């Protein structure tokens, strides 16, 4: 069999058309990796600088009423994980920074990832797109003739007459093609690994482990494509038929299914427009909703006076304004939780539709896993947004608490730098690999099924392949 492997390998390398296709795909892969890395790194540096500046501004606010400071607010930046240079995921749509201020949870999520199909995003080719679209195309071009072409040329009869088994022949060809592909994929993987080790553009959330799993995901995807191409090549009447069928598969996988997934997921789980969403939050903030009434200031004041047994707000041991501000903050939080929670949940349900549709297009499973491992999927945005919102709430509690505790109603109170400095910066820990994979069980199962199914189909088709 090693003879078949070697022959197939040299055939691929000698064939000018495939050599140039491979060189092109390999070059695109390296360029997109490099470009992604440089971008991720500069974005990370910008974020770090901006974060430092924001903190600096926060700490040097001077003397100020804590509530003014709360309005002054602070920016929080979603850290870019090490692998985000491979797959930018939903980052371009959601943005990676959020403004934390009094009274409101700001939009972080503008548009979900799945909205963008490959064609729309081709402008800035990412490594993930090369891996998800172009490498499978190359695999198809290298494999469609593997058996159909030999049959058509009449060499298949002579090959099989030598005593070599059909499966051995097919496996040898698959390995030869895989070897040729390895010439472009292995260097890319090494460059990627080096980029992770040498100058990781983001904080470490087990980057190497994520990288290894990511490599495994793409390996499974490519193997499935290779096996599928071989199965079709064994089955098809002619090499031409095999090519047409496989290009059809490629189009459905890469162009049709993602588009259908977007439309179907939106139809099944509609999301409001940004404007509708904002209006709804505004309306609920103004009037409250069933079970979440707006805070009643006179009643709150009455309650405070009764609690402390005094007649006038000036005699309260706390600043009534601070207590009221915190009450309204908490009211707002419940409205936000309601609305944002529902929105995030809807996005996640849309994501499940994409994962399920991977049954017809493995790309959808690979895309979901790739974004997840790169830390750029909707779930990890939610993870960060939740942490940022928790931090905002803590910040507001501190500001309102300081106002309530350290001043009296009617005072002109100014807090000093100690308060700003006492307020800790946001410490965000990105989720673990286990958390990411735990969210993606469905995609893992579907991709695994594709892999096993394609290999079994290839084995069966090859065994039954007609000699011609």
């Amino acid at each position, binding site marked *: 069999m090693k003879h078949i492997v070697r022959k197939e390998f040299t055939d691929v390398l000698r064939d000018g058309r495939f050599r140039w296709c491979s060189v092109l795909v390999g070059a695109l892969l390296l360029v997109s990796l490099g470009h992604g890395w440089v971008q991720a790194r500069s974005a990370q540096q910008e974020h770090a600088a901006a974060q430092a500046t924001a903190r600096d501004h926060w700490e040097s606010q001077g003397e100020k009423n804590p509530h003014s400071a709360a309005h002054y607010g602070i920016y929080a930046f979603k850290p870019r994980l090490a692998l985000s240079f491979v797959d930018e995921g939903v980052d371009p749509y959601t943005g990676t920074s959020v403004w934390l201020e009094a009274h409101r949870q700001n939009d972080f999520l503008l548009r979900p990832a799945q909205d963008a199909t490959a064609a729309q995003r081709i402008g800035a080719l990412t490594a993930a797109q090369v891996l998800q679209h172009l490498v499978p195309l190359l695999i198809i071009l290298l494999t469609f003739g593997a058996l159909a072409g030999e049959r058509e040329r009449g060499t298949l009869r002579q090959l099989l*007459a030598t005593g070599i088994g059909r499966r051995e022949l097919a496996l040898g060809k698959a390995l030869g093609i895989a070897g040729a592909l390895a010439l472009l994929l292995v260097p890319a993987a090494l460059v990627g690994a080096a980029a992770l080790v040498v100058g990781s553009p983001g904080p470490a959330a087990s980057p190497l482990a994520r990288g290894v799993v990511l490599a495994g995901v793409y390996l499974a995807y490519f193997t499935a494509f290779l096996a599928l191409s071989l199965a079709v090549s064994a089955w098809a009447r002619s090499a031409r038929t095999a090519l047409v069928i496989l290009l059809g598969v490629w189009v459905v996988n890469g162009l049709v299914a993602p588009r259908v997934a977007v439309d179907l997921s939106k139809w099944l789980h509609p999301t409001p427009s940004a404007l509708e969403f904002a209006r709804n939050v505004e309306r609920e903030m103004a009037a409250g909703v069933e079970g979440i009434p707006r805070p009643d200031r006179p009643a709150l004041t009455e309650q405070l006076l009764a609690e402390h047994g005094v007649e006038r707000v000036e005699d309260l041991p706390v600043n009534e304004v601070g207590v009221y501000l915190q009450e309204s903050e908490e009211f707002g939080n419940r409205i936000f939780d309601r609305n944002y929670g529902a929105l995030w949940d809807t996005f996640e349900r849309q994501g499940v539709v994409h994962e399920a549709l991977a049954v017809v297009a493995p790309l959808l499973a690979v895309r979901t896993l790739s974004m997840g491992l790169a830390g750029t999927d909707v779930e990890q945005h939610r993870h960060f947004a939740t942490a940022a919102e928790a931090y905002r709430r803590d910040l507001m509690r501190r500001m309102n608490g300081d106002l309530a505790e350290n001043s009296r109603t009617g005072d002109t109170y100014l807090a000093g730098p100690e308060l700003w400095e006492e307020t800790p910066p946001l410490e965000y820990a990105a989720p673990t690999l286990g958390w990411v994979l735990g969210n993606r069980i469905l995609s893992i199962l579907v991709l695994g099924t594709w892999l096993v199914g394609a290999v079994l189909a290839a084995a069966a088709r090859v065994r039954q392949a007609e*000699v011609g």
Partner: protein
Amino acid sequence: MNTPESRHPAELGNGRAPLLEARGLSKNYGATRALDSLDLAIAPGEVYCLLGPNGAGKTTTINLFLGFVAPTSGQAFIAGLDVSAHDRETKQRIAYIPEQVMLYRNLSGLENLEYFAALGGKGALTPGRLTDILVEAGLERSAVDQRVSEYSKGMRQKVGIAIAIAKEADALLLDEPTSGLDPQASNEFSELIERLKNRGVAVLMATHDLFRAKETGTRVGIMRYGRLVTELGTEEIGHADLERIYLKHMHD
């Protein structure tokens, strides 16, 4: 002397245990009876020529020996092994030369031989030895390293022979190997077959060419509509007899 019909197939020919044997071998393609109860035995050193018009079932017979199609009934044996049960072992004993030997055009004759020989289990043959085999098969030494895309049909058939020689096969399956060759190339081809025969190779050759069959064959079988209608020893008859018998069967 026994008539051929009364003897068991294995006893036909030169009396040695047959290398190629068919017992009641039949193949239907849908309603077409492509091969009908073929009994045949070819011993070492025998060249059996299957004669018959297009569609008589010659290629089907060879395909059955190659295991490329499954018999509807009956069995094909190579060196005593049932082809359908011993795919690999039986193929290791045989070499096959089709009407058009198909080679990899972007490889040289030598590289093609190297590849097919290696797949046939002769990966240890050196390029020097393989070149000698190509020359033995009748290829010009200067052509050995040329790309096959520049070869004539005759040259490609010679590479086919070289593949068979390199494999040291016990039996040869030839499907109209000389059709389309000029008389000289065709004659050279016959000489090679003769040499292999003398080494004890059993040959089954399908052909249209009565003259070639009489020259090269030790026995001829005439097929029509999937049936072997008669079998003759070439020693017993002249060229004219063969033609007469052939035409008689065609017009029956």
